């Protein structure tokens, strides 16, 4: 579980996160949504410790991140998996080496065990015949799968995903969404996904946080998001032509 308490972050005069609190639960896919510039990425990076908050706390299973010393923070980070928007795979390593990298850095596994574990995860994300390929030699969808595999290879307790299906076709995006959800439930991970894709919201939105201009404007689940009377959320949801057409069809127009 990750608790966020009155988090604030600014860059110069620009207040990006303006003080809000929320809780992300394990075994659920927690989605952060909002328009561009609403502070989603800064919020995610602040939770990851890449940005230091100006005030407020991020509490990982009862441990405030800011109270941890450097060594404790490093230990905590070993329990975090992250899927970056652009996958962030290491160019010079093969798919297998990318996935085995956290094991090489943080465990005492020998090479044989590392490869075995990497292959287990490769099978889990349905990546076939790509072990010895470089990231530049595989498709965007496969790169996302590699990034997910690398994020979960160390059995993390927390999984962060920054727009995991951006740039993917709708079918592949749905597969990636479902894969993340399955892994979350299987391993009881606290998963936080940053997205502005309404399809993802509908597929896997167990807990949704809507950010607007640095404020938490709405919180709920996917069944509640279409019923809210929050105008900003409604505008965001129905900015998609597909959802607009569905609403118009439901209204008999």
């Amino acid at each position: 579980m990750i608790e966020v308490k009155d988090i604030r972050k600014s860059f110069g005069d620009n207040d990006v996160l303006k003080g809000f609190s929320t809780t992300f639960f394990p075994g659920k896919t927690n989605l952060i949504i909002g328009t561009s510039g609403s502070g989603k990425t800064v919020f995610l990076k602040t939770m990851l410790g890449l940005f230091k908050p100006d005030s407020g706390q991020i509490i990982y299973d009862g441990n405030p991140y800011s109270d941890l010393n450097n060594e404790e923070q490093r230990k905590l980070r070993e329990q975090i998996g992250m899927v970056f928007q652009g996958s962030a795979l290491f160019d010079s390593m093969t798919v297998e080496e990318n996935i085995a990298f956290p094991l090489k850095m943080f465990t005492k596994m020998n090479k044989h065990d590392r490869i075995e574990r990497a292959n287990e995860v490769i099978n889990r994300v349905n990546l076939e015949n790509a072990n010895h390929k470089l990231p530049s030699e595989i498709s965007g969808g496969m790169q996302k799968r590699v990034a997910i595999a690398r994020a979960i290879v160390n059995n993390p307790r927390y999984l962060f995903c920054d727009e995991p299906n951006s740039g993917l076709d709708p079918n592949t995006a749905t597969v990636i969404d479902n894969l993340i959800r399955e892994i979350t439930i299987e391993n009881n991970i606290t998963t936080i996904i940053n997205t502005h894709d309404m399809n993802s919201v509908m597929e896997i939105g167990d807990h949704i946080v809507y950010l607007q201009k640095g404020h938490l404007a709405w919180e709920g689940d996917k069944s509640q998001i279409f019923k809210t009377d929050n105008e900003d959320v409604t505008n965001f949801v129905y900015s998609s032509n597909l959802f607009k057409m569905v609403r118009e069809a439901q209204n008999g127009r």
Partner: protein
Amino acid sequence: MSYLHSIGSYFIMIKDTFVKPTKGKVLRDLVFKEIDDLIIGSLGIVAFISFFVGGVVAIQTALNLTNPLLPKSLIGFASRQSVILEFAPTFISVIMAGKVGSFITSSIGTMRVTEQIDALEVMGINSINYLVFPKIIAMCIYPFLIAIGMFLGIMGAYTAAVYGGFAPSSDFLLGLQEDFIPFQVFYAFFKTFLFSFLLATIPAYHGYFMEGGALEVGKASTTSFVWTSVAIILVNFIVTQLLLS
């Protein structure tokens, strides 16, 4: 103010390079990879430039020895002094600021742009140590590259002088051994060692702290070449002043 800020950030980066070290086996692999990229990959260009610039030094010296009273051995003497004192350590280092420096800046800069550095940080890895420290260790071998440059520079000078008909072999070899001061070799390698540190760290700094996209990676590479060259020339002046004057 921005220059002061950059200098401060550079020294903080140097400090961070030596804390929270990367696991031994991983570091060993990284160092070997860097030796391959930075040193072995530069052998060809260093050998080519050294040989031909050595030849040019010999020819120019010979063409300027118009007074018949001046001995032909001066060609060997002047070539040795030029190559060992300045050409091999300094001139090659400035060229390496372009070759190795651009490579370091663009590779680290691309890692920054594509969030690979963020990925390392999120995993709890000291990304500065992981990326910069192996380069510093690999560049410790750089003086050997310069030694090869010195040898080939003198070989080039010998070839141009003897086979170009400017001086007999015996005169050239005599000049090569004339008034040899071993301390000057120490001076050359001492400054080469300092240059190797600058060549590893200044381009790494420009790559690591760059912001923006692909265009900025190119700009950062250019900036890193300029500042590495400036630093090399300044350190060259200071070390020469301290050790030789």
